[in-house]
């Protein structure tokens, strides 16, 4: 009798183990296929030159540049907002109705489908905010059309929950004893936050920022209509007059890795001919996101260990 129970138990356990393996095999297959087919195309020129001949030759540099630009802009918008929100939530809001509402809003924001963000980006940022800014500033149709600024804004509200949650976690990890010691020395609330809590939370905040950038680089739906273009003759860069410094132009459209892959795979004239470049683009994109994710995870582990030593 006992043998039968143990046997069936083992079978079930092996089933569970194999389910886990299936997931991991899927991951490895994906990475493998991308690596095998994508790395063939990767050369220095591929990474640094423009696409040619309807994307059948050339490189994807503008897409890489655009991805970096838009995620940079996104994190500039999302990080201060998210960190400040988290500080308010932990240090000032307590447990009352307001705190619970804010937390519910953050959770909801995290569950919004990405295309809804895209819809919101078009309807609110471009058509409402942008057109009204144009009206007020008399700039014609400058703000009221797809631009990197609006794509970055849309992405930033998508990643806001990531920033808020990881910052909150990092702030809460600071032990009460450190805060008590600071208060006992006559520090004001903001001094405790800025001199004791935030410095200790920086690693966690950094992890959240890196995860957000990874997420932002990988999302396509929010930027489909808010600023991406399939092919642009020049980079979204503008030179500031007088100072002669080149700067990213947030009001320009831009090329982007995930968007590029999407259009190439679904709408290029000769999908087979562009297939190698599709794999190359996918490979670059996944390398980027994976490196970011891995560094965020390693940071988290490293700082958790350092914390334990205390």
């Amino acid at each position, binding site marked *: 009798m006992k043998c039968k129970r143990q046997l069936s138990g083992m079978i079930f356990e092996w089933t569970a183990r194999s389910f886990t393996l299936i997931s991991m095999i899927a991951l490895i297959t994906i990475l493998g296929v991308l690596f095998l087919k994508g790395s063939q195309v990767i050369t220095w020129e591929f990474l640094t030159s423009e696409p040619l001949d309807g994307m059948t030759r050339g490189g994807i540099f503008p897409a890489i540049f655009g991805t970096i630009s838009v995620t940079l802009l996104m994190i500039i918008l999302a990080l201060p907002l998210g960190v400040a929100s988290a500080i308010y939530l932990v240090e000032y809001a307590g447990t009352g109705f307001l705190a619970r509402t804010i937390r519910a809003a953050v959770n909801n924001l995290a569950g919004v489908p990405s295309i809804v963000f895209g819809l919101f980006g078009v309807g609110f940022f471009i058509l409402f905010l942008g057109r009204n800014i144009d009206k007020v500033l008399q700039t014609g149709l400058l703000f009221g059309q797809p631009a990197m600024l609006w794509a970055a804004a849309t992405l930033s509200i998508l990643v806001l929950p990531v920033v808020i949650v990881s910052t909150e976690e990092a702030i809460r990890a600071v032990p009460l004893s450190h805060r008590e010691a600071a208060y006992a020395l*006559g*520090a004001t609330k903001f001094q405790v936050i800025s*001199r004791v809590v935030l410095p200790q939370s920086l690693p966690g905040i950094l992890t959240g920022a890196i995860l957000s950038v990874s997420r932002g680089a990988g999302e396509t739906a929010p930027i489909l209509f808010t600023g991406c273009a399939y092919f642009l003759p020049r980079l979204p860069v503008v030179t500031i007059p007088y100072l002669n410094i080149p700067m990213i132009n947030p009001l320009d459209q831009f090329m982007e890795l995930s968007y590029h892959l999407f259009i190439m795979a679904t709408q290029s004239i000769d999908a087979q001919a562009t297939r190698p470049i599709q794999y190359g683009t996918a490979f670059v994109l996944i390398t980027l996101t994976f490196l970011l994710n891995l560094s965020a995870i390693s940071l988290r582990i490293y700082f958790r260990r350092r914390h334990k030593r205390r």
Partner: protein
Amino acid sequence: MESSAGNSYKIETRSLSYYYEDHKVLHSVSLPIPDKKVTAVIGPSGCGKSTLIKSVNRIGEITSQIKVEGEVLFNGENIYRPGVDVVELRRRIGMVFQKPNPFPKSIYENVAFGLRIHGITGKEQLDSIVEQSLRQAALWDEVKDRLSESAFKLSGGQQQRLCIARALALDPEVILMDEPCSALDPTGTARTEETIQVLKSDYCILIVTHNMQQAARVSDYTAFLNLGRLIEHDLTTNIFTNPKNKLTEDYITGRFG
């Protein structure tokens, strides 16, 4: 009861009742704490001694909802009056906690922290106050060559003396100590007690301890608390040789607690 120079005590609680989240922890405690002396508060676990000491620098308020009846006087003024600047109050009353809690900064920066938040930034001034505070805490000789090292490299006893130095940097008028030696080994404890004896000539010291021998060694006056009530308060020698209350005698002789 003797008082120090002047008509009022440095700190005095008058019929102080203290509520932690609607739970009454102290019942009408009236305790005078004279200047330039060490007053010890003893009593079994849960008697309210930590609460009492935390009511003096109002540090209990940062985590919980509290309610206060009665008064706590500091230099004759009730610190629970509306409009009292709590930040300023805490600058003038220093606190050392049960478990040493240095900041994750260098030894120097730990001591200088209080000075920086109160606007002192000149390097020379910081250097001299940091040195003086570390000397007062009997730590200077051990750390003078490694001020920029992390505070966590110090032993438990050294960390606690660092916390004392950190509190001393602001030259407070009162030093509160919440079971300062309970997390230390005998050597650390001995060193800390020595420091307390030296400090009392300049400061008013209130120390909470569950170790009666320590109270007997270190303090001039002792207060015995039980279940939130002040049972007896007298010169230490009187409390330990000739207690007037039976409860006090029972606690001291180890019949409970």
